[in-house]
C-alpha cells in the first residue's frame, strides 16, 4: 500500500484515535448530542490537527528537544485561536452549540499525541496525511456517537425527523448519562467483534502458536466459551 494511503487507513481504522486509542474522550462525550455537532467538532479538530502536524513537522529541526512540549502547545494554541475566530465569524450557530469545547481543542490529547508520536519525526507530506487520517477517524467516531444519541434521544438524524411522531424519544440519551452509555455500547460491540475474530483465528491456528501473548488469549477465550 502507498505509504500516504497507509496513513489514512491507519487513522481511520487501525489506530482510530477515539475507538481504539481512547484519546480525546472529553469532546467525544460532550458534543455528541447531535450528529451535526459531531461533524462540526470533528472537522474543526481535523483542521487544527492537519495544520499543527504540518507546522510541527516543518519546525522539527528548529525546535530544541528540551522545550519541545511548550513549543508544541504554543503552536496548537495559536491554531486553535485562529480556528475559533473563524468559526465565530462564519458559523455562529456551530460556535454557540460547541461553546467552550472549541478553545479546549488545545488540550485534546490527540493533537499533542500526534505531534509527539508522529509529526516531529516525519516529513510534512506524511504528517499532513497522518493528521487527515486521524482527524477523519475522530470525526467519524464523533458523528456515529452523535447520530445514535440524536436518533434515540430526539427522534431526528441530522435535524430531520426519522422516528414516527408516535414514538416517544428517550430523553436520557441526549443528556450527560447517555453519552457514557452510547460510547460504552460502541466500544462493547467493537470488543465483541474483536473477541469473535480472535476465536476464529484460534480455531484455525490452534493454541500452539508462537506468539507470547497467545496463552493469555487462549485463557481469556476459554473463559468466554465457558460462559
Amino acid at each position, binding site marked *: 500500500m502507498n505509504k500516504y494511503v497507509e496513513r489514512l487507513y491507519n487513522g481511520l481504522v487501525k489506530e482510530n484515535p477515539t475507538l481504539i486509542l*481512547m*484519546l480525546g*474522550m*472529553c*469532546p467525544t*462525550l*460532550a458534543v455528541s448530542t447531535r450528529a451535526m455537532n459531531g461533524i462540526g467538532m470533528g472537522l474543526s479538530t481535523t483542521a487544527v490537527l492537519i495544520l499543527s502536524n504540518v507546522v510541527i513537522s516543518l519546525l522539527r529541526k528548529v525546535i530544541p528537544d528540551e522545550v519541545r512540549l*511548550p513549543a508544541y*502547545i*504554543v503552536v496548537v*494554541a*495559536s491554531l*486553535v*485561536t485562529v480556528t*475559533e*475566530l473563524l468559526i465565530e465569524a462564519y458559523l455562529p450557530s456551530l460556535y454557540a452549540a460547541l461553546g*467552550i469545547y472549541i*478553545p*479546549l481543542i*488545545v*488540550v*485534546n*490529547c490527540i493533537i*499533542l499525541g500526534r505531534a509527539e508520536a508522529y509529526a516531529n519525526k516525519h516529513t510534512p507530506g506524511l504528517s499532513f496525511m497522518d493528521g487527515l487520517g486521524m482527524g477523519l477517524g475522530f470525526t467519524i467516531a464523533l458523528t456515529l456517537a452523535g447520530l445514535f444519541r440524536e436518533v434515540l434521544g430526539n427522534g431526528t438524524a441530522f435535524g430531520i425527523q426519522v422516528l414516527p411522531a408516535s414514538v416517544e424519544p428517550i430523553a*436520557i440519551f441526549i*443528556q*450527560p*448519562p*447517555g*453519552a*457514557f*452509555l452510547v*460510547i*460504552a*455500547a460502541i*466500544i*462493547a*460491540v467493537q*470488543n*465483541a467483534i474483536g*473477541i469473535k475474530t480472535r476465536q476464529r483465528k484460534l480455531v484455525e491456528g490452534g493454541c500452539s502458536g508462537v506468539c507470547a501473548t497467545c496463552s493469555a488469549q487462549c485463557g*481469556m477465550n476459554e*473463559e*468466554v466459551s465457558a*460462559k
Partner: protein
Amino acid sequence: MNTSLIMIVIGAALINNVVLNQFLGICSFLGVSKQMKASASLGMAVVFVITIASAVANLLYDYVLNPLGLDFMKTIVFILVIAALVQIVEMFLKKTSPAIYKALGIYLPLITTNCAVLGVALTNVQNGYNFLESILAGFGTAVGYTLAIVLLAGIRSRIHEEDIPAPLRGAPIVMISAALMSIAFMGFSGLSF
C-alpha cells in the same frame, strides 16, 4: 451575596459536576480511577492546582488581557500560565513539603493536560466572575472532580471482583458505571437556594 457564593461552590461541585456533567478531565477520570489511593492523591493535586490557576487566570484577565484588548489571546495565555504554574507548584512543594510532593508523584505534572483546569479558567471568564467568585468556582469544580474520581475508584474496586460479560470488560463497564453516577448526580439539579 453570601448565598450566591455558596451557590457557586455547590453548583460547581455537584449540580454541574465537571466530569459527569461537563465531560472535562475524562482521560484522567477513566485512567487513574483504577486505584483508590492514586485517585485521592490526584484529587488533592487537582484541588490545589485548579484553585490557584483560577485565581491567577482571573487576575491576568482582569488586569492585563482585558484592559489591553487582548481578549482573543486568552486561550494561549491561560494554557501557558497553567503549564508554568504546575511547574512552580511542583518545585514549591518539593522544597516545602516533601511528604505531599511524594504523595502526588507523577500526577502533578500530568495536570497540565487535564482539560478541567483550562476549562474552569475559560468558564470563569465567560461567566464574568470576579476574583473571589473565580476562586470559589475553581475550588468547587475541583472538589466535584475529586468526589467523582474517588467514587468511581470505589465502584471499580468492587467491579473488579464481579463476573462481567467479556465484551463489556475494561472501558465499557467503567463508562456504564460513570453513566449511572451521572444519572445519580442529575438529582442534584433540583437543588436551588
